């Protein structure tokens, strides 16, 4: 019976379906935990307690929030561009899911090892910009539009240093496959964060900018743009944006872990625990940024990318290439 089903559907498809199911569960649970963690981090950094009423340590708070969001009315403003308006929240969530497919959580735990894994992630994560633009344009609201335009400018500017810093890693590992890059960093001294510190720094800064988080949160700066591109969304549509934001956070941290922190490499404990420990540590660092740094101005944001990050990453790339040729 099972054999027949496998024969009909095919082993690969089953793997993908199971993998996507697992990824979906992971995404939802990690978002629930991260919203709680974000508020806890914020609270304690401001010497407050943060949520504590719902459940022990306020742990059930995100569930209560989710139920509230599901219960809300899905309001569609009168003059919106309906197809685009409705497509936005759905489109933002798809690339997020696909990016998880190529991330190796442990030596054997990966939905699919594609030999251009990094390119898949980069290609699909740039789609996020498109959905932000669509939802901002479709909302027929000046704040949404300004937010999404800013987001596009920012994402394009920071994608280049991001790519160049990844390329330095690819030079060293001779592979685009996430798994092979992780395998190339066995032992803590071989982690690329120590061999490519500049690339890691550039990559991490660009990641924070790509996920639209403080200090680069201009697309949704509350004090100037209400909520940026998701101003007009309510209920579950807003929740999807929220889900995508936090999942993007996990994805960039997971990619940074795989590319620079040795992925699932680590002593004694099983690899998956190391992987998630490193990933969530990076997530914590990004949250730490958010509750420490003020928002940058837009010209500072773009200048920083074009004038500092980009020359530095070019220099890093050329130096890496030259060194690899010499050694």
């Amino acid at each position, binding site marked *: 019976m099972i054999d027949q089903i496998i024969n009909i559907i095919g082993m690969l498809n089953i793997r993908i379906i199971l993998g996507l199911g697992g990824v979906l569960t992971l995404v939802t649970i990690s978002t629930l935990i991260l919203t709680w963690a974000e508020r806890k*981090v914020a*609270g*304690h*950094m*401001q*010497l*407050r*307690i943060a949520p*504590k009423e719902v459940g022990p340590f306020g742990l059930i708070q995100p569930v209560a929030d989710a139920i509230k969001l599901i219960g809300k009315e899905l309001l569609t403003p009168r003059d919106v561009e309906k197809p685009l308006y409705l497509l936005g929240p759905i489109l933002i969530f798809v690339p997020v899911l696909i990016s998880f497919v190529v991330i190796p959580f442990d030596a054997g735990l990966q939905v699919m090892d594609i030999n251009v894994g990094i390119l898949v992630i980069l290609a699909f994560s740039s789609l996020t910009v498109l959905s932000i633009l669509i939802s901002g344009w479709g909302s027929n609201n000046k704040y949404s539009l300004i937010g999404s335009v800013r987001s596009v400018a920012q994402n394009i500017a920071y994608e280049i240093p991001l790519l160049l810093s990844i390329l330095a890693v690819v030079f060293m590992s001779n592979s685009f496959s996430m798994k092979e890059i992780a395998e190339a960093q066995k032992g803590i001294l071989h982690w690329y964060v120590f061999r490519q510190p500049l690339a890691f720094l550039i990559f991490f800064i660009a990641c924070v900018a790509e996920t639209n988080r403080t200090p680069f949160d201009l697309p949704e700066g509350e004090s100037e743009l209400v909520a940026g591109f998701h101003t007009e969304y309510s209920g579950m549509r807003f929740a999807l944006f929220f889900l995508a934001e936090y999942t993007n956070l996990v994805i960039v941290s997971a990619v940074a872990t795989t590319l620079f922190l040795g992925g699932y490499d680590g002593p004694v404990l099983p690899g998956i625990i190391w992987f998630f420990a490193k990933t969530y540590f990076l997530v914590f660092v990004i949250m*730490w*940024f958010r*509750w*420490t*740094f003020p928002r940058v101005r837009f010209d500072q944001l773009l200048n920083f990318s074009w004038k*500092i990050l980009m020359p530095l990453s070019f220099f890093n790339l050329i130096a890496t290439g030259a060194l690899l040729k010499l050694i």
Partner: protein
Amino acid sequence: MDIITGALSLLSGMWITIKAFFRPVVTVQYPRQVIEITPRFRGHTKLVADEASPDRTRCIACGICERNCPSNAIKKVEGEKREGEKKKTATSYMLDFTACSHCGICVETCPAEALAFSADYNPVGFKRDDFCWDLVKEFEKRRALA
């Protein structure tokens, strides 16, 4: 050079927040935890008990507070002279707390030192009249509770 100083300032900022992260919280969970009210807190005024006869206030109903009140919050300071006593004894002292500005002139000018600030920081009510108290009656209520 700017990059280095900038990076150092970012790091020092992060050091501050991470220190705060591990420091104990300073907020108080109000309905469940209540902090001590400091002795110099200025709540609404209250009448103080007389040492000689604790079931009575020190107020001699002279009306100086009523005349001195800049907001006209004190009204109807009345008293009666009881048999065999030299001073008057207050029978009514109306305080309109909605008009009171906590200036403390009444407390300072009182010749009998019968007034003091209470530590009552959270009076509530649904009407304006809920904040018009007869301090003599309030004093008797406090006595009864004690």
